[in-house]
Every structure is written in C-alpha cells, then in structure tokens.
C-alpha cells in the first residue's frame, strides 16, 4: 500500500504508420498508460478510422445474432482461460468473411425450417379437419345417399343436391376464441341459409404468425345457393380461417388421409434433419465464438484509441499523448519495441517526455486485499495528485471502528467464517461471474468483511459478549462469598431483599480487575448498563480524539510536500493546539479520574463533565479541584485555544497578502543578507532538481503565486475553514459517541433475541418438548443472521464509513482528483456478457 499517489508524466508516443496497430495492441495488453484525446473538436463520424470501426460493429452485430441463436439452442459456449490477442488487419478480413458466411447459412436454414413448419401445420390441420368432419357427416347420415354434383369452382366446396336445392360445403379451422363471433356473423348475414357445426381439436396447435399456442376449432358450413357461398367465403376470409377442400365421399376422404399421413411423416423427417444440421452448425460456431468476441472487442478498442491520436505533418507517423507513471516508462519503451517488431516496421516507435501544466491523474496501486479499502476511500473522492492517501490507515481503523460498534464474539466468529469461505473459494467464484449485484458487492468486499469479523472477535472478547452471554475464562474478580464471611450478608438478608449491592470496600469482595476485558459478573448485575455506558462513552471520546488528531497530523505531510511550509505554522499548529488544548485535556481528565480515584474514594469522585463546563465559563471556585493547580492549567489551556482561533482565521490571508506585496518589506533593511536569504527562500518559487528527468513534475504547487491576488476571496475561504474546523471539533467529538450508541443497541438486541427466542426452548420441561429446541434454535439462527449480522452489520459499516469520510478525512483530505484509468483490454466491458449471452 502506498503513502501517496504515484508520480506521473505526460509523454508523446511517435508510432510509425505500419506498426501503430501492434504497438497499441501491446499497450492494451499491458494496461500501462491513459490516452488523451488529441482531436476533441472532431465528431466521431469525421475521425480517421471510422470505416474500420464500422466494420467492427458489423462483426459485432453478426456475433450478437450468432450468440442469440446459440443461446436459443441451449449450447454452452466454452471459454478459454487466456484471451486471444487482437488480430492483425489481414486476419480481420478472414474473420469477417467467416462470420458473414455463417450468418447467411444460419438465416437460410432458419428460413427453410420455418417454411417446413408452416407446411407441417397445414397438413396437420387438414388431417384434423378430415377426421372431425367425418363425424359430422356420419351423424347426419341422410347426406350420404345423395349423388355428388360437379365441384363448384368458387372456393373448393362440393355441391350436393337436396330436394332441388344446391348444397355446398365449406370446411376449415378457426381459432377457438373467434368461434362465437363467427357463428353470430354467419347467422346475421346468411339468415338461416347456412348450418354451422363445429368441434374442438384436441391438440393445441401453434399459430405460426403470432407464435401462440391455442386451441382451434374445426367447422363445417353447409349452405344453399351460390350467393350465400360467396358471402360465406368472404366471412371466412375475414376471420382468418384456414380453409381446406372438403372430400366428396368416404373413399376420397380415406385416400386424402393416407396421403396426408405419409406426407406428414416425410416432413417430420426433413424437419428433424434440418434441426440436427442447424445444431451442428451452431456447435461448430460456438467453439470459436468466444475468441471472435474477444478479438473484435480488442480491435474496436484499438481503433478507438487510434482515433484519439493525431497525424504529424509528413503523415508518416501517429502522435499520441499519454499519461504514464514514471516508474513504468521502461516498460512502455519495451512495449513499443515489441510492437514495432511485430509490425515489421523499419523505424521503431519511441517515447518522448514532455512537460505539462495540467494536473496528472491519480494512480494508487493496489492488490486484491487493499483494493476493497481503496474503493471505499475513493467512493468519497479520488485523491488529488500526490496527496497523502488515507487508504493504508483505513485498512486497520475501519475494521476497528466497525468492531467497536459491533463487538460480539459469536457474531464476529460467524462473520469471519463467512468471509473466510468467500476468500478461500475466490478463484471458483471469480469464474462463475454471477449476475446478482448484491452478491457481487459482498464478494468484492470479502477482505473487508474478514477484517471486520476478526476485529469483532477481538472487541467481543473485550466486551465479554458472546450471543449476549459472558464467558468466564479467567475467573471473576468479584467474590460473593466474601460478603458472607465478613458478616455483611446473612441468609436472612437474601430472603428479605430482591436486590443487593456488593461493596468493593469490604475486604475480599473485589480481588482485582479481570485480566482481559469486562468482568463476567457484570452480565448478571442489574446495574450493568450504568457501568458499561460510562465506560463506552469515555472510550468513544478517547478513540475519537485520537483519530482526529491523527488526521490533523497527516495534513503536515501534505503541506510539506506541496512546498507550503507556511501552512505548517499557520494552519496545522493552531488546529492541533485548539484540538488538543480542549479535547486532549478532556481525554487527560478521563484518564486521570480513572487512575486517581479508587473504590474507597468513589463516592467523592467528581463529574468530569461539570469540570469541563466550568473550565469554559471559568467558574471553578466552589468545587474541589481534581488535582492541585487545576485552575491555573485550565486558564492557560483555554487561553492557548482562544489565541489559536484568530491565528487560524487571519494568519494565512495576511501572510499571502504580505507575499503578494513583495514580501521583502522586512529585508530591505538588511542589505547583503538579502542575497543569502533569497537563495534560501524556496518556499514560493518552484525548485528544479539536478536530475532533469524529475524536474518537470515537482512543479506541483497547489496554489502557485497568482498574478491576481484576491484578498477578500482568501479571507472568506479561510474564515469558512476556521469556523468549520472549530465548530467541527466539538460536533465531531460528539459524533464519535455513535460508537457507544451502536454498541449498546447491538448488545441490547442480542439480549432481547436470546431472552425471547432461545429461552423459550430451554424452559420446556416435558419429555417430548425437548424436540421443540430444534426449531427454536433454527429460528434463533435465522434471526441472528438477518437482524444482528446483516442489518446491524450494514448499519455499523455505514456509521464507521461516515466517521472515516467526515470526521477523519475532512481534517486533511481534499479528494478532488481524477482517477487514472489505463487503456487495458481487461477493463473494457463486454456487451455480450452483460446480456448474459456469454
């Protein structure tokens, strides 16, 4: 973990036109540098490599279609561990060709399959219709005896004569939902000259146009007369019926049924073969799908980067501007050489450092352990360039403050085991790549949770709280027997009193403090909370003041680094004095009271809060002092704190004003000394080191001497800072009391859960009732995990985070920087992965 962010430099890359693709490919694999856009005013359609990007997007479209088909066919796409490199331009055409061929083949096969399925549906419907109308005809057996007439040319119906009138038939299928409307329409239009009989088909058929599966109904309409026939035909068209020719007699019906059966069988065969072929094609394509996707993604990224570069006058080479960490310059050179070699360039590409006045982006290197803590710091704000980073300290202080609020041995063990499981199976989980966002958040913070759990085990031992019960490991320091042996209590006292107080002044009752943590006897005391509250509140204030002082001290490193030594005297010193004189003194009083007053004097022990308030209103004459000389010391501390406020308020603006005015007012009187002083005075002018390489970048003055010095602006800014700091000291110290509040809440919730759930299971006295303990424990475990671990855990996490972000970081951290985002192929998002296709 690093103390401050890395030094960056702006560099120009000169890439020869033959090998620029390979150079950028190398850089993308390594992920070293961040490219700057040299053509910001050019729209994306006017850039140089727009046609190549269009080609990549076309390939992505085809790949998307291909992956969707593969996904529909439920074929798994095998992924390789190593991602393939970006293909050279000559290979690109091959891939493009392959993809286009695949697309054509797939669409043709899909079209054929659809045609075959449509055909199959028609044949199936015809079969059903024939079978069902057979039953209609046979139920009305009179029609069989009539001879057939010639087929009517209008729409495939056969005519029959009955009593001189011409009888026509129309038969087909209609969707079940439309049947009633159809019948009503027929009745209204044809006014009784038609007879409609219909029956439902057992099998549900898919309507190919809409893809719905629904029931159909076979109908048979018999009508008199030609005109009616035409009307019926039109109505059938209206209702999108599938009409099929009605056979004239049974033999014809049987023939048609037979031929239909064979045709359906053939069609099924062909369909199966088509599906098998389609599956084969998709299987073959799926083997290389993954590498194509990666290659196309890398290619597109490289062309985007090439679009950011500018061409030089001779049009022979590309110029790119990159931000590069100084420690990686050698690797950058190596990458360019490698790229030039791969691209077979005659002239190698090279790097040239250039000076810059812009602030470089911030880079903080982290590994899988520290990246979690880094990300929670950066969620507040990315640090300024070369600012002190609070992340290394957060690794310890964040889990510690969490644990102070969460302190429970049992819960800590459960949390640590959960985090340990995540850590041990991390390789497997990384491969799984779940879509559940909540799980991914928990998994990414596994090291944070592990640390929080381990620290909670520690504070659980200190608070002596394990699922709300205390553990007696060393033997309690209090002895009840001693109250009896010293004749303080008798059996009669026990019988007559519900509550008794143990007196530590009686010899033998209190045998010294418990070696580690809180004495387990407090778990059984009724006044447990009075004792613990006082202890936890004082502890919170102590932790708070230490944390904040540490923050103030860290600001010194920033002031020194940015060559603003005056800040150390005008900002840091007054701040520290104010904080320590007031709240440091409070901490001192707490420790003094703990050490100076024993059980014998405890009824005379004064209230610290009263003394503290009296210090401010300077009225301490009536109360006995804590220690001799208290009044004098308090007045002195108060004076120092009061004086540091105007220094903080006016010191920096006045100093800057004096500098702006020339700053040499005092020196004019000392002639030759001025020469010596001027060469020593390096707090304003930037210093150039001997090493030229470094000289460019240490010009990192945060506030260079401005040409225009706005006194009012500086004054206002400083006044805001002073008020914020001074009032903030008080409110932030009080804010640390949340450490007490949350730990109290957690302990109480834990106790309530035990008393209301587990105790029920223990109090069962019947023989069979013992089995009741099993579900009771299950309920207890579920509630513990959901309420105490998840809810309280998240709450404590949030509060610890707030304490870091506000109370700690506003003492020294600016957090207004820009993060360094290198050009790295592994960081690019994959559209297909997001859609769940890969």
């Amino acid at each position, binding site marked *: 973990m690093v103390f401050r962010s890395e030094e960056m430099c702006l560099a120009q890359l000169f890439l020869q036109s033959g090998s620029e693709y390979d150079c950028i490919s190398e850089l993308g694999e390594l992920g070293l540098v961040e490219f700057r856009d040299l053509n910001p005013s050019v729209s994306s359609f006017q850039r140089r490599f727009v046609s190549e990007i269009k080609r990549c997007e076309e390939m992505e479209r085809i790949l998307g279609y291909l992956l969707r088909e593969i996904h529909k066919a439920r074929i798994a796409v095998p992924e390789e561990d190593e991602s393939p490199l970006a293909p050279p331009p000559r290979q690109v055409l091959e891939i493009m060709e392959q993809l286009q061929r695949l697309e054509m083949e797939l669409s043709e096969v899909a079209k054929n399959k659809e045609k075959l399925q449509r055909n199959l549906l028609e044949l199936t419907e015809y079969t059903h219709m024939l079978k069902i109308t057979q039953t209609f005809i046979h139920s009305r057996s009179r029609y069989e005896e009539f001879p057939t007439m010639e087929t009517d040319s209008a729409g495939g119906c056969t005519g029959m004569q009955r009593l001189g009138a011409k009888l026509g038939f129309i038969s087909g299928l209609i969707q079940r939902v439309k049947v009633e409307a159809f019948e009503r329409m027929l009745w209204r239009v044809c006014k009784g000259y038609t007879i409609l009989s219909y029956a439902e088909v057992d099998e549900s058929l898919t309507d190919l146009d809409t893809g719905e599966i629904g029931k159909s109904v076979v109908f048979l309409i018999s009508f008199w007369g030609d005109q009616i026939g035409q009307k019926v035909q039109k109505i059938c068209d209206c209702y999108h019926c599938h009409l099929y020719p009605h056979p004239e007699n049974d033999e014809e019906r049987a023939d048609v049924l037979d031929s239909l059966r064979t045709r359906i069988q053939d069609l099924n065969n062909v369909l199966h073969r088509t599906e098998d072929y389609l599956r084969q094609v998709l299987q073959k394509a799926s083997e290389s799908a993954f590498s194509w996707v990666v290659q196309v993604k890398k290619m597109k990224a490289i062309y985007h980067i090439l679009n950011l570069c500018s061409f030089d006058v001779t049009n022979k080479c590309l110029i790119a501007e990159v931000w590069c960490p100084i420690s990686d310059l050698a690797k950058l050179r190596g990458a360019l050489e490698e790229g030039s070699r791969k691209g077979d360039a005659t002239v190698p590409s090279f790097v040239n450092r250039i000076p810059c006045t812009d602030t470089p982006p911030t880079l903080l290197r982290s590994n899988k352990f520290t990246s979690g803590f880094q990300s929670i710091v950066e969620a507040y704000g990315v640090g300024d360039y070369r600012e002190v980073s609070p992340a290394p300290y957060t690794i310890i202080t964040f889990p510690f403050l969490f644990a102070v609020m969460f302190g429970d041995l049992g819960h800590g063990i459960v949390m640590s085991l959960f985090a340990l499981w995540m850590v041990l199976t991390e390789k497997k989980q990384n491969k799984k790549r779940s879509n559940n966002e909540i799980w991914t958040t928990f998994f990414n913070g596994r090291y944070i949770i592990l640390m929080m759990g381990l620290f909670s085990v520690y504070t659980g031992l200190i608070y002596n709280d394990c699922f709300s019960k205390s553990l007696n490991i060393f033997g309690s320091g209090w002895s009840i027997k001693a109250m009896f042996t010293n004749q303080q209590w008798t059996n009669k006292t026990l019988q007559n009193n519900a509550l008794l107080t143990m007196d530590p002044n009686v010899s033998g009752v209190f045998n010294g403090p418990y070696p580690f943590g809180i004495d387990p006897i407090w778990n*059984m005391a009724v006044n447990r909370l009075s004792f613990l509250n006082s202890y936890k509140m004082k502890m919170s204030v102590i932790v708070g003041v230490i944390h904040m002082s540490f923050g103030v001290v860290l600001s010194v490193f920033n002031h020194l680094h940015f060559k603003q030594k005056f800040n150390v005297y005008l900002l840091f010193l007054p701040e520290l004095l104010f904080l320590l004189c007031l709240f440091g003194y409070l901490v001192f009083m707490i420790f003094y009271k703990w050490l100076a007053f024993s059980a014998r004097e405890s009824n005379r022990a004064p209230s610290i809060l009263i003394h503290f308030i009296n210090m401010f209103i300077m009225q301490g004459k009536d109360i006995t002092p804590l220690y001799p000389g208290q009044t004098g010391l308090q007045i002195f501390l108060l004076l120092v704190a009061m004086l540091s406020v105007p220094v903080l308020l006016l010191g920096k603006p006045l100093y800057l004003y004096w500098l702006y005015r020339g700053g040499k007012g005092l020196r004019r009187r000392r002639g030759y000394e001025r020469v010596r002083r001027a060469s020593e005075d390096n707090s304003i002018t930037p210093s150039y080191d001997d090493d030229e390489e470094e000289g460019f970048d240490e010009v990192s003055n945060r506030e260079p001497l401005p040409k225009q010095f706005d006194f009012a602006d500086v004054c206002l800014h400083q006044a805001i800072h002073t008020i914020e700091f001074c009032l903030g000291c008080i409110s932030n110290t009080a804010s640390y009391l949340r450490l007490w509040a949350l730990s109290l809440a957690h302990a109480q919730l834990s106790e309530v859960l035990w008393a209301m759930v587990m105790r029920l299971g*223990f109090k069962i006295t019947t023989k069979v009732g013992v089995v009741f*303990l*099993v579900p009771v*424990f*299950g309920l207890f*475990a579920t509630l513990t995990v959901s309420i105490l671990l998840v809810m309280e855990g998240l709450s404590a996490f949030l509060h610890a985070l707030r304490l870091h972000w506000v109370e700690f970081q506003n003492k020294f951290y600016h957090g207004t920087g820009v993060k360094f985002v290198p050009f790295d192929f592994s960081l690019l998002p994959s559209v297909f992965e997001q859609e769940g296709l890969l």
Partner: protein
Amino acid sequence: MRVLFCGPKLAACGIVLSTWGVVMLGLLGIFFITHSAGLIEDIPLQREDLYPDPNPPQRVYDLYNQVGYNCFIAAAIYVVLGALSCCQMRLNKKKEYLVQ
C-alpha cells in the same frame, strides 16, 4: 436416500444451520452440565425449587443437568439433519454433473 427434495441452496443452508446447531448446542450443553452461573436465567427455575430445599442447591443442579441433556439431544437431532442435508447436496451435485 435416493429422493431429491430440496435444491442446492436449501441443502447448503441446511448444512450451515446444522453445523452451527451442533457446535452451539453442544457447547451450551457442556456449559449447562458444568452449572455455569451466567445461564441461571435460562433454566425453568421456580421459587419452590429454592426455598424448601433440604440439600441446596441440588434441585437447581438437577434442573441444570436436565436442560443440558435437552441441549445434547437437540444437537444429536441436528447431526441427523446435517447428514440429511449432506446427502441432498451430494445428490444435487450428481444431478448437475449428469445434465452437463
């Protein structure tokens, strides 16, 4: 047991709960058997058990032992449940392996 009646997630929950149950109820049983004072409020103690007692605190100790044995029985039941969940987990893994 050949019948699969819970999915992988339920089986995993079952294993975790059973392990926790066995460990915690076992430890609680031991603490009850050794008559630890911190657990006094968890035993079904009545006023009659305390005062007319010729041989104190034998009644209280008996109650402690009873609750302790209850805890051990519950822990044993959780061992059975844990074994059941393990079987289900193994069956689930086999099914997953076969499908792929």
